[in-house]
């Protein structure tokens, strides 16, 4: 890997990487069983500089922001490189958000430029909201059909400048990107990440999970997410490694990609890891009795020899067929974005496939702790990465308290929200809102959340305030959405769900019509944002002088109800 200590910005490091690794394969794009493209770092540079020049010719410069709303593909990374080369700030947005949500964030971020792909633009341009995004001047759309109506956008492919663009240097303390951790409904949380955040975050990786020219990273998590931006772009690029993008994430094509591209690392969210486990378990169960017995014996031996730490060569020899199904080169599966169940992690480790269970959050750039596999432990999220201080604030008698971190990887603050920034970064410590405990070995164990939110198994952060608008004008006296574990703390990261608390009008009862109304509104939300049930509450909600609901007061009162009987399923 390049020596990142030498660099002031991620743009400068990427620029050098393109020259240093010019002849290496940089990106592979696959669409189902077809390989669409394979480009070297040299090819990447040629494409990126032509785009950069055209961007610079529009007047795009330091202080300008460019948003990317695309599925994982080479054009995402080429566009990002062009923005950083010009000294601009990236605003990566989730392509899975609704057009309404995307417009809200484009407006909030004051993006000047938008890079997107045609199917997304078709929906975005048909949705109201564009007039509010007043800063947006240039829209570049990829892969638009020849006669498509672009609604004021330009074709990404023909947006090319002549001549050499000028590289614009940045300082470590300058903002490299604004990454939204949530807040599509209520209060957008745009984390302002500095160049230093990324450079410092990346520095310890080679010692733990090395990458090199020829190593392959399978990029599945969306690149707008902090994890893939680092592991599927910056880290492999400054290491000269290859990133593989898949156009479809159907499980069968993801499975095929492992042996086809000899994947070295992949990051998965817990839901996908669990699915992979289910599939493997079904195949093991289907083995004839004799073979199954032999297989189980080999797993037992593998468990014994890897007790102190992974022994990749030995595991690949003992459980050859399993490892071959993963391409035979897989070094580790990184799991992040949400909490993983220990037994799922153990399942893979017992097969000799290391699972790097990690903990992090966007506000902290990406990773805070990771399992160093010395030895593997499924019950924790590992030890703090070098350079990151972790302490437990206000611990209870069991040592459990709020996880706080201090490090050069912590964001500089939330965009346009100094109040929220001051609540989140206190005396230089980032208050994560997660509850945890450090054990004597220095491993962090998580025990739930202090904050009113949930993280789905797909790694989506859902804040109740963001989904309440769908229940506006519901015919009840008042309502509020809560994370059930916030009301009834579980000391667990499992069983997270949202509930709608309603206070009925005097004399009103919870009728089938009302239930149906709630259910219909709930169905308008994306499936992972939906509430799980309804809680009936008979008193007025406590409110502030400005009539805002005092959510923590209300949660304390609701906690007196019995969780199991209080939540009425929809």
């Amino acid at each position, binding site marked *: 890997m390049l020596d990142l200590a030498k660099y002031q910005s991620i743009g400068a490091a990427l620029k050098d990487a393109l020259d240093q690794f010019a002849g290496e394969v940089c990106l592979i794009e696959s669409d189902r069983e077809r390989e669409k493209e394979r480009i070297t770092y040299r090819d990447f540079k040629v494409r990126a500089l032509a785009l950069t020049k055209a961007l610079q010719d529009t007047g795009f410069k330091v202080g300008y922001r460019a948003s990317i709303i695309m*599925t994982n593909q080479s054009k995402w990374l080429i566009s990002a490189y062009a923005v950083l080369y010009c000294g601009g700030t990236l605003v990566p947005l989730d392509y899975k958000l609704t057009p309404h949500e995307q417009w809200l964030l484009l407006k909030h971020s004051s993006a000047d430029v938008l890079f997107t792909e045609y199917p997304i633009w078709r929906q975005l341009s048909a949705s109201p909201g564009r007039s509010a995004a007043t800063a947006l001047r240039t829209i570049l759309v990829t892969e638009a059909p020849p006669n498509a109506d672009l609604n004021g956008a330009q074709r990404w492919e023909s947006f090319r400048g002549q001549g050499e663009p000028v590289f614009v240097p940045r300082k470590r303390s300058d903002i490299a990107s604004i990454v939204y951790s949530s807040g599509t409904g209520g209060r957008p949380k745009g984390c302002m990440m500095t160049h230093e955040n990324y450079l410092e975050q990346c520095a310890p990786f080679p010692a733990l999970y090395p990458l090199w020219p020829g190593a392959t990273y399978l990029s599945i998590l969306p690149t707008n997410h902090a994890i893939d931006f680092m592991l599927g772009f910056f880290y492999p690029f400054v290491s000269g490694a290859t990133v593989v993008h898949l156009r479809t*994430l159907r499980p069968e094509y993801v499975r095929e990609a492992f042996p086809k591209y000899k994947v070295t690392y992949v990051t998965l969210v817990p839901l996908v890891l669990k699915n992979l486990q289910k599939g493997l378990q079904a195949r093991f169960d289907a083995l004839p009795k004799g073979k199954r017995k032999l297989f189980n014996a080999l797993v037992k031996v593998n468990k014994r020899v890897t007790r102190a730490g992974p022994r990749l060569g030995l595991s690949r020899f003992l459980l050859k067929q399993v490892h071959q199904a993963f391409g035979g080169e897989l070094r580790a599966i990184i799991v992040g974005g949400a909490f993983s169940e220990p037994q799922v992690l153990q399942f893979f480790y017992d097969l000799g496939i290391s699972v790097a269970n990690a903990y992090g959050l966007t506000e902290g750039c990406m990773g805070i702790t990771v399992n160093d596999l010395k030895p593997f432990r499924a019950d924790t999220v590992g030890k703090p990465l070098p350079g990151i201080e972790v302490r437990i604030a206000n611990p209870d008698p069991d040592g459990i308290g709020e996880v706080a971190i201090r490090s050069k990887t912590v964001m500089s603050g939330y965009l346009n929200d100094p109040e929220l920034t001051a609540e989140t970064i206190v005396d230089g410590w980032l208050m994560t809102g997660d509850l945890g405990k450090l054990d004597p070995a220095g491993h962090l164990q998580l025990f739930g959340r202090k904050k009113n939110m949930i993280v789905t198994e797909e790694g989506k952060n859902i804040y109740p305030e963001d989904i309440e608008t769908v229940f506006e004008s519901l015919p009840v006296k008042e309502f509020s959405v809560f994370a059930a574990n916030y009301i009834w703390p579980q000391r667990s990261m499992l069983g997270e769900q949202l509930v709608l608390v309603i206070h009925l009008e005097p004399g009103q009862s919870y009728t089938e019509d009302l239930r149906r109304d709630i259910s219909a509104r709930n169905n308008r939300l994306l*499936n992972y944002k939906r509430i799980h049930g309804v809680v009936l509450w008979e008193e007025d909600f406590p409110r502030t002088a400005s009539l805002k609901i005092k959510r923590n007061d209300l949660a304390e009162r609701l906690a007196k109800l019995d969780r199991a009987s209080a939540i009425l399923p929809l």
Partner: protein
Amino acid sequence: MRTLEQTTKEILDLASKHFNVPAGSLSADDDFFKKLGIDSLQTLEMLSRLENHFGIELPDYEVQGVSDFKTLASRIQSRL
């Protein structure tokens, strides 16, 4: 060529068979996440089966945000 009604019926039949729910218990307006109790990955598996059945390719973006059989049927119909 199939009509939209035929396409919808074939989708409902396939879904009921694949996820073991009684034939006839699904309707076009149903939310398949909820009705079938499936997650996003299982939905992707269902799409692969539908692609094989109809002999089409359905890019992931076409089904982004779709959660009811009716919309799914219209997306498939436009590619037949």
